[in-house]
């Protein structure tokens, strides 16, 4: 029998392995970023929550301006300001319970502080020190991550481990629009969805990766749409609307807590300041764009709502401003003290037990420091 004759008996059928998997429709984000403030949904928002968000936003803005000032005085090596993004930062911290975990990137100091970490300790790495300052276990906040998106798989692993242990823990991981191009973003979302890990990813889309606008970063309909490819829901929210971000994140956290798996949230916001104090934003964007976003300011939006509903008066606003000033004054005073630096400590935590090689090198540095000390002493003596 020839091959053609054999084929005559062949009856085609659909490929046996293929079957429909997840229905993508419920995973799709809304066409427009979800908003609460200035809409009918605002009436349902809890007044206490709105007041707490407001107080934290004002503190956050003041923290940003104070930290930026500290870079100019040489007290901070670098500060990536989150001015304009305070709603995302604060809502992220407030959407979590105490036993949950936060995985911040380098622009998320506000979220870290809003979670309870000491404002000075939160700046340790940015001050130019060799360690992260705070103990991650105390407030369940991972160290600020500098390599983009690399903290996302950590959040997935931690949430997965907690679920394996039967603990009620959700991890919230923060990333920027530029970070969504990294391989770790993709791998983290994929692992999270496959494992149905209780984790929430918040992308703060602030328009720029240093100088590169979103149009050069992705061709996706929105960053929230990327969720669909992994089989998890994507949510799009106005990132300057603190009430909306809080609601969307709280829902996602609750969904994860209930065993529903991960969610990707894209918060559309804007980086009002340059990338850091070392950046010059005038080289890549115009004032008109910045002014348009200033007119959609997260603090003004919330203040308008609180005022309109009579939830805050002038005295209330003044009290909030006063609280923020006190925080800034304390930050300034504490940051203006020279930190205690011990070069010998550089060897202490490389390994659980210091190796023979590091003991030798530590002794070398010790001898150098002693010689410096001695020379210094001689100079002092000579001057007398």
């Amino acid at each position, binding site marked *: 029998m020839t091959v053609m004759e054999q084929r005559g008996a062949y009856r085609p059928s659909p490929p046996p392995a293929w079957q429909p998997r997840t229905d993508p429709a419920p995973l799709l984000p809304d066409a427009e970023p979800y908003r609460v403030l200035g809409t009918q949904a605002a009436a349902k928002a809890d007044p206490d929550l709105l007041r707490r968000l407001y107080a934290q936003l004002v503190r956050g803005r003041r923290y940003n301006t104070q930290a930026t000032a500290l870079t100019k005085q040489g007290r901070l090596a670098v500060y990536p300001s989150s001015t304009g993004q305070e709603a995302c930062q604060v809502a992220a911290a407030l959407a979590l319970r105490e036993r949950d975990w936060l995985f911040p990137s380098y622009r998320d100091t506000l979220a870290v502080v809003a979670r309870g970490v000491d404002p000075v300790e939160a700046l340790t790495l940015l001050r130019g020190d*060799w*360690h*992260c300052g705070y*103990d*991650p*276990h105390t407030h369940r906040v*991972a*160290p600020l991550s500098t*390599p983009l998106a*690399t903290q*996302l*798989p*950590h*959040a*997935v*692993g*931690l*949430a*997965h*481990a*907690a679920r*394996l*242990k039967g603990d009620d823990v959700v*991890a919230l991981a923060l990333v920027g629009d530029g970070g969504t191009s990294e*391989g*770790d973003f993709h*791998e*983290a979302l*994929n*692992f999270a969805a*496959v494992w149905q890990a209780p984790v929430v990813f918040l992308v703060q889309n602030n328009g720029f990766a240093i100088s590169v606008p979103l149009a050069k970063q992705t061709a996706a309909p929105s960053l929230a749409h990327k969720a669909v490819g992994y089989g998890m829901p994507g949510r799009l929210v106005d990132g300057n609307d603190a009430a909306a971000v809080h609601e969307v994140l709280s829902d996602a956290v609750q969904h994860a807590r209930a065993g529903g798996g991960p969610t990707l949230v894209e918060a559309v916001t804007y980086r009002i300041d340059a990338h850091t104090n070392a950046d010059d934003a005038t080289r890549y964007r115009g004032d008109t764009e910045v002014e348009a976003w200033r007119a959609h300011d997260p603090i003004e939006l919330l203040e308008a709502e609180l005022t309109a509903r009579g939830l805050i008066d002038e005295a209330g606003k003044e009290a909030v401003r006063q609280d923020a000033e006190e925080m800034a004054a304390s930050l300034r005073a504490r940051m203006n003290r020279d930190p205690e630096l011990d070069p010998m400590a550089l060897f*202490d*935590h*490389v*390994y*659980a037990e210091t*190796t*023979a*090689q590091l003991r030798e090198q530590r002794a070398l540095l010790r001898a150098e420091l002693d010689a410096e000390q001695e020379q210094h002493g001689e100079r002092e003596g000579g001057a007398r």
Partner: protein
Amino acid sequence: MTTVAVKPATMAQALTRALRDAMAADPTVHVMGEDVGALGGVFRVTDGLAKEFGEDRCTDTPLAEAGILGTAVGMAMYGLRPVVEMQFDAFAYPAFEQLISHVSRMRNRTRGRMPLPITVRVPYGGGIGGVEHHSDSSEAYYMATPGLHVVTPATVADAYGLLRQAIASDDPVVVLEPKRLYWSKDAWNPEHPTDVEPIGRAVVRRPGRSATLVTYGPSLPVCLEAAEAARAEGWDLEVLDLRSLVPFDDETVCAAVRRTGRAVVVHESTGFGGPGGEIAARITERCFHHLEAPVLRVAGFDIPYPPPMLERHHLPGVDRILDAVARLQWEAEG
């Protein structure tokens, strides 16, 4: 030393046993990687673990090495002891950012508050007829990263012992498993695994007085063979198995070289920028006045790992080792 009648076991079997015993002893030990579940790993080292301990303890992950190691970091942050399998040496490269930027540094970054007790198992080296990306000697990359321990067993007993020690360590440990020794056999009793020297110690595998061959992993059997062959030339070669590349056992290495006065470092990894340069420098710095000749290196050529049909020309063999020994300035002996 008690003599126990034991059947020969392979290095792969000893590794499996080490994983199994570690998982049975400590519920926080989790094995994860590509194909480690039903298949038991491409080298069958995780054979039976998913069945015995369940898929939550021995997990087939998505095919993404950065994701595997990155999620292992998060698991370790929460108190687990992940044992990650990288399927092949060259497949571990996508995980390097996690390894270098986080795994090796988290203890330091958190001043000891968040140690990462992660074991990364990497089948490495050539000699098995693997096609491209399946035979790399990647140890120098790991050695150059402070915060990691790097160990490599060359015997069946060490395969068990070093892997158990790695899993028990509170530091991240890269365990480089010599692929071509997976099926090497040795008398070894899985019911009574013998204690081995701790991570950080080198061991003399063959005493000798003429010169010291300093080696590790896949090159150990080659060096032992060379030492046997050298007897015909009148050389009594000592063979030192480093076992642990980080921490490095300067003490044992220097004691050996001071005894013999001559040293050849042997490894498959490339010579330029490879471990041999560091080892030769350390020996020279510490034992200069005991040396009768410069420390020589026998290494892989500085070329991408060659295809299976040509790899025998690349790998350090007995002849190349003996040629190096012959160049150790014996004229001075008269």
